[in-house]
């Protein structure tokens, strides 16, 4: 996490539209945001697109950042981008399913056609429900406190604590028990 005093001049520069400051901001946050998207999608190409979308959207939205925790604001934007991506994918899936049922009803196909190998963590993360997976990744990659995460998700801190505890415990159990497939 970048120190807020180091980050302040960069954000001011970004608000003024300085490309150098945006470049620095990308250098500071690209790794964590990419990790966040990758662990949620398990796909490098999609993560590339989402990371690109995040920083392009940042150019448009940086003026609306009114201070406070920049990390919280950035990861909130990243979460919104991921939610948009999920909605788009659901729409596409429905369309594809509808077309398939008309043209080739007997043929079924696994949606995951990627050849890239997934690590054990990625496989076990896939066994968690979407909201829990997103909460764990938000906590890990945004490095925000529980209080900040609860505020971002507009839920009581007790709810966030409990969901995250249950999710992490389940993930740990899966990692310790399940053999790597």
């Amino acid at each position, binding site marked *: 996490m970048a120190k807020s005093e180091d980050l302040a001049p960069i954000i001011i520069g970004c608000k003024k539209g300085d490309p150098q400051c945006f470049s620095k901001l990308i250098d500071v946050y690209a790794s964590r945001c990419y990790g966040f998207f990758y662990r949620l999608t398990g796909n490098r190409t999609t993560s590339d697109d989402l990371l690109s979308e995040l920083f392009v959207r940042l150019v448009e939205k940086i003026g609306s950042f009114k201070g406070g925790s920049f990390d919280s604001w950035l990861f909130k934007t990243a979460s919104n981008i991921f939610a948009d991506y999920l909605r788009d994918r659901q729409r596409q899936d429905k369309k594809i399913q509808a077309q398939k049922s008309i043209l080739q009803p007997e043929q079924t196909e696994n949606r995951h056609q990627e050849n890239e190998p997934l690590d054990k963590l990625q496989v076990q993360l896939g066994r968690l429900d979407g909201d829990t997976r997103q909460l*764990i990744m938000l906590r890990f990659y945004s490095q925000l406190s529980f209080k900040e995460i609860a505020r971002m998700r507009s839920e009581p801190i007790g709810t966030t604590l409990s969901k995250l505890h249950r999710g992490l415990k389940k993930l740990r159990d899966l990692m310790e028990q399940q053999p790597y497939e």
Partner: protein
Amino acid sequence: MNNQDKENLRQMFEIFVNSDQAEEAAEDIRRAEQILDEYPAPEPDSRLLARIKAEVTAGLQQSKAGIHRRMVYKIAVAAAAAVVILAAVSVKLFEKGVVVPQKFTYTPAIPRTIWESKLLADDDENLASLTAEFEDIESEVLAVHSGKTNGNSNMAELEIELTEIDSDFWKG
């Protein structure tokens, strides 16, 4: 030091569960987060970052050009509106043939002779005739009271005369 380092997980859990359960929950989280540390996600490709930076720069240029275009458009609209208003006002003035007065003239509401008079009853004609009428009436009233004239006919004439005077006076 990030915001996570500052928070005490055990204390946070103690708000909701007892001390032992809080310690256990905090430990669960710490151990699970260690697993996440052991499996780092892949890093973004340097070519991807270069492409994103180029996209951002292009986006900034477009946004600047957009701002400039919007500003020019606003100024053009304001100038056009001003020209239209000016033209409309000019046409209206031309059609009406409005003549702007060159010099103001003043005329007194009360005639100068009356304003400067020292004896208003003599200088104002209306007031002089009214005074004469009053004097006539006064003499006639005195005649009636002294019994020199026939009271009935004189009283009737007097009333008619008073009515005329009254109406003439208020007419001005």
